[in-house]
């Protein structure tokens, strides 16, 4: 789960990490009052969307007066912000975070995520703050300093201290950075985060070390033990079809191709997307209907797929293991009666009772093409939409 910058900064405050003074608003007319309250000659008006790259897209601006703050807030709220992470369609900005301006001495990077190779969290810091860290990692990997964290010990004070000196910090700045890193680990660990990223982490002329920006992602599997986190979810940031699918416990990811796919199992669902590409078209979605694949899930799956207007054909690919294919076939027939499937439909069923299932499908009177195997199915659906 992803959250907004202003929400992430609230969490940092809980762990005694310094963040700029600021307030969030959906109403441009509040901006002037916030400017006055913050009391710095310059304030920063920041668009709040989940995607990164907001500055480059024109979603982060400086205001030097009450009226300018209001003007910029008016400009940004409601704008369609396009960044490298939103895709070309962009994202509508619903609110801005207005923060105090400050005298920035240096910009750094700090982040914690899982190092899958070691199965342990790793803290990474860099003197190259404020830049695209993936680019830094690629071009100048020696500028990224890493400390692997023992998940049972946590980030140790000596590690936090090492990292702060490794950034070239001295005196009180180094001391503050050390506490900053320890707090950051606590936030990552206590909140079951999958990523905590501060870019940039800054030192200021008035002697502070603070998180100028912050991104936190959470481990979806751990949300059950954080009653307060799900309410931070912003459904307007998600694809409406994906939100709808999640209500039916369907695992759906919208893509931009023409062939809707319905598959049981995540690996096979990905492989089905791949073979559609291989056959010369492209997938409209990832959809894993899970192990059950009963009439209800299949019906909901069809509804979700058909709500995507780019869909020109549907490929159902089910490998019936423990669940018998004849049951799935009956489910598909029933679903096809309830949902108006107005595009070509190719169904491939394999596994237990596949032959019987084929008969059921062929005798159902429902317009569909029955495929023999994975390759056959992909070729048939691509052929059908090209006709």
């Amino acid at each position, binding site marked *: 789960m992803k959250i907004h910058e202003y929400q992430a900064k609230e969490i940092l405050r809980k762990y005694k990490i310094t963040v700029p003074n600021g307030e969030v608003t959906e109403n441009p007319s509040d901006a002037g009052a916030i400017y006055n309250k913050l009391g710095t000659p310059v304030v920063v008006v920041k668009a709040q969307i989940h995607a990164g790259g907001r500055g480059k897209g024109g979603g982060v601006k400086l205001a030097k007066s009450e009226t300018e703050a209001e003007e910029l807030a008016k400009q940004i709220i409601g704008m369609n912000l396009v960044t490298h992470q939103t895709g070309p369609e962009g994202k509508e900005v619903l609110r801005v975070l207005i923060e105090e301006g400050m005298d920035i001495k240096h910009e750094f990077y700090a982040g914690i995520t899982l190092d899958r190779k070691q199965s342990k969290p790793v803290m990474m810091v860099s003197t190259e703050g404020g830049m695209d860290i993936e680019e830094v990692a690629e071009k100048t990997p020696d500028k990224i300093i890493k400390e692997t964290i023992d998940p049972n010990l946590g980030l140790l004070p000596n590690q936090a201290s090492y990292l702060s000196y490794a950034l070239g910090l001295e005196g009180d700045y180094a001391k503050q950075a050390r506490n900053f890193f320890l707090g950051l680990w606590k936030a990552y660990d206590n909140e079951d985060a999958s990523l905590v990223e501060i870019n940039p982490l800054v030192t200021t002329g008035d002697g502070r070390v603070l998180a100028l920006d912050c991104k936190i992602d959470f481990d979806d599997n751990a949300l059950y033990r954080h009653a307060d986190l799900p309410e931070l979810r912003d459904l307007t940031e998600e694809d409406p079809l994906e939100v709808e699918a999640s209500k039916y416990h369907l695992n759906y990811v919208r893509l931009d191709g023409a062939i809707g796919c319905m598959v049981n199992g995540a690996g*096979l669902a990905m*492989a089905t997307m791949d073979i559609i590409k291989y056959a010369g078209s492209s997938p409209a979605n990832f959809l894993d209907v899970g192990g059950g694949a009963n009439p209800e899930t299949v019906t909901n799956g069809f509804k979700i797929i058909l709500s995507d207007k780019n869909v020109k054909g549907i490929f159902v690919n089910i490998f019936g293991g423990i669940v018998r294919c004849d049951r799935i076939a009956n489910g598909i027939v029933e679903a096809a009666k309830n949902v108006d499937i107005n595009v070509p439909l190719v169904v491939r069923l394999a596994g237990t009772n596949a032959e019987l299932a084929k008969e059921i499908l062929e005798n159902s009177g429902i317009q569909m093409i029955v495929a023999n195997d994975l390759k056959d199915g992909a070729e048939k659906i691509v052929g059908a939409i090209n006709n």
Partner: protein
Amino acid sequence: MAVLLTENNKIIVQGITGKEGSFHTAQMLEYGTKLVGGVTPGKGGQESEHGLPIFNSVKDAVKETGADTTVIFVPPSFAADAVIEALNAGIKLAVCITEGIPVKDMAKIIPYVRNSDMKLIGPNCPGIISPGIGKIGIMPGFIHTPGKIGVISRSGTLTYEAVGQLSALGLGQSTCIGIGGDPIIGLPHLEAVKLMAEDPDTEGIVMIGEIGGTAEEEASVYIKQNVKKPVVGFIAGQTAPPGRRMGHAGAIISGGAGTAETKMKAMSDAGIYVCESPAEIGLKMKEALG
């Protein structure tokens, strides 16, 4: 023969009275798997609906039955604990089917698992099958045939697809290991490949990977240097966009790492027969065996 699961394993089921555990216990028995009991705290002394003895703890089960293998069906919030319970009771092979375990829970227990002589398969996996001998997991037994191909995969139904293709071409399997779709798993590709490479009765290896992480790349380096047997590889998620989780918690391209492209290149560089299409897995193995 087979790896991990042979005629000698004595297997218990943790969570034997739960819905999943109970159903799959029946399926495993029907396949001829040697199950010796189950564990559900509070139901010790009773008998399961399958006629197996139930114990309150893995320790009791090991003491009474001599079990050395466990299959875990307990819910996600208790699963990591169940793995450590098995480890402390002296179990040598634990297969964790449970999906949805928090990453933090796995990160905390994995150092203990790695420092022990217990192998952990999964979590979030279909399990292990040695066709003709038995199955520890949830895969449909009948699609498998005994033979000489080892199959290693991060996913469930895609493994069945590959196995179906192999069986249809007359290529039976020695052992199929579903290693799991989570970011942290007990037995990564590399370790599974080593087992298959050392098994005298496995003549060819199918390695099915997914986007996310670098486990396939690491296995490829090992294969290039050490494995003489033909290896066929496929990576699912060639068409997946970066930053989006494709069902499995581990199937996500992040920070530019874990793309299908880099994995396929690493496999190809290692002399692995790489399938671009998932429909070619069986045929490629046939070709590789010559």
